[in-house]
């Protein structure tokens, strides 16, 4: 890894991370404050006034009754997928394809650093920054809960949900990173780097709408983990760990190898 490049990459991308994190915090604080241990029926009644298909698509058909399952079902079914996905797509595209398209990659490669070192540094930035994002979300969740409802959050299962979602995002960012390495224009890199994760996202939402559509979920990466089941302890966790890890490993490795070998129009 090249420290100078890592620093430079952090400098030009941290603001995107901060914006995404701020928006996520806004929603998280609202959702935690909505929890009312005495009056869950009230919240249920409010949700029932919303269009049922929309709520189902967002994975809100069954809301937990404890703070942990409430936050997890409300927040981790939809919002925690959408915002880090936006981050992955934007940043992955900027890390490689944008440098190639603009030509600034020529300056990086005109220094005595191998292509391999440069592409690995960019990959590590993406992986580490997503890890930091989830670490902050996890810590913020604990802090908000402890302030508003001390002692209600089950930290162990909350950690597990965060870890499994993080693994999922190693896979999602890997997909975007792969296309960023594969294509020389940001137009193509974004079309696929955003298109594939968004398609998975839409399939996941569709599969939640009605039981008869649930088979669609088999085609979506996001259906691999069911946060509420994890909290309740009856999900098959090994699949939600192994499959995303494998996809992440494959996509990042393939992206790195392709970039190391391909012709660069710079």
């Amino acid at each position, binding site marked *: 890894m090249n420290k*100078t490049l890592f620093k430079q990459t952090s400098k030009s991308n941290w603001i995107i991370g901060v914006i995404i994190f701020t928006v996520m915090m806004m929603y998280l604080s609202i959702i935690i404050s909505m929890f009312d241990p005495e009056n869950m029926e009230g919240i249920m009644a409010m949700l029932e006034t919303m269009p049922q298909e929309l709520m189902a698509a967002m994975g809100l058909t069954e809301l937990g009754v404890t703070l942990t399952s409430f936050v997890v079902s409300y927040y981790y079914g939809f919002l925690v997928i959408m915002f880090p996905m936006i981050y992955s797509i934007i940043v992955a595209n900027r890390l490689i394809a944008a440098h190639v398209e603009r030509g600034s990659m020529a*300056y990086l490669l*005109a220094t*005595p650093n191998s*292509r391999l*070192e440069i592409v690995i540094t960019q990959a590590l930035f993406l992986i580490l920054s997503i890890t930091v994002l989830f670490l902050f979300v996890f810590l913020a969740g604990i802090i908000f809960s402890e302030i508003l409802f001390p002692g209600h959050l089950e930290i162990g299962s909350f950690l597990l949900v965060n870890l499994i979602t993080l693994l999922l995002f190693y896979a999602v960012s890997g997909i975007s990173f792969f296309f960023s390495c594969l294509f020389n224009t940001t137009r193509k890199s974004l079309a696929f780097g955003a298109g594939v994760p968004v398609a998975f996202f839409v399939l996941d939402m569709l599969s939640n709408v009605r039981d008869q559509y649930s088979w669609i979920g088999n085609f979506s990466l996001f259906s691999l983990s069911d946060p509420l089941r994890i909290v309740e302890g009856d999900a098959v966790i090994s699949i939600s760990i192994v499959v995303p890890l494998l996809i992440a490993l494959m996509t990042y490795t393939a992206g790195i190898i392709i970039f190391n*070998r391909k*012709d*660069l129009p*710079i």
Partner: protein
Amino acid sequence: MSIIQVENVTKIYKSGKGIFDISFSVDQGEVFGYLGPNGAGKTTTIRQLMGFTNVDQGRCLIRGMDTRLQAEEIQKFVGYIPGEIAFFNNMTGKQFLDFISQMRKQAKSRTAELVTRFELDVKPKISKMSKGMKQKVALTAAFMHDPEIYILDEPTSGLDPLMQKTFIELILEEKKRGKTILMSSHSFEEVERTSDRAGVIREGRLVALEDVNSLKAAQRKAFIVTVVSSGEVELLQNSNLEISRITGNQVEIIISSNYDEFIRVLTKCSVKGLDVLNQNLEQAFMKYYGREAEKNE
């Protein structure tokens, strides 16, 4: 001793364009001009030398090392200017130069000297700089680590004439210090003033590889002579000079090496005006660019 070796390199893009079986070498301490109009394949060749692309056939070596496989090692002693100006977003000139120095783990630096020499203001953001200013940043980045070998892709594009002169002086100094330089250009004048030898590329093929003096003999220059009467126009027409166009009393004459004859004929007329016509590379080297020059007419 050959420092840069291009051996039978072929690289064809999907569009069918590319370079075909190009071979040349640049010796230690030599300045090599790589001449050709836009789109002829100059940048394609330079990309090979920088290790940005894979050859279809042949190989490129710098100091005996493969430019694609050992790029990292080679970049320790190479200074490079890309053909297209492209930098990092949101960096000032100084931030960019510092960043590149750090990427090179560069100990010595003559950045300050170059910045003064090019009258470069490094404080503004690069995105706010003029084209000429950006090119000066690129020049400084290529020269600041005092490399042994320079690979320069159209280094003077965007520079005003005064800065072009400064640049040429710098090249001549580096040459005196024994540096090896490969410089692409579409201007023969620039190559003529700096280079020892030159390669001329046309549609991806090397059509000439000669020392600059013999290229100069092949160069054609156009002069516009304004005479007083139509009788004198006829006199010029009847001489052995090659005439490309006549408008009223203005006669366009093409000269390659027959300056003597040109002057002799002119003394017989009363000349009211004499101008040199700016020509592009294809027109100056009709010998190599026959077809394209006609297309441009």
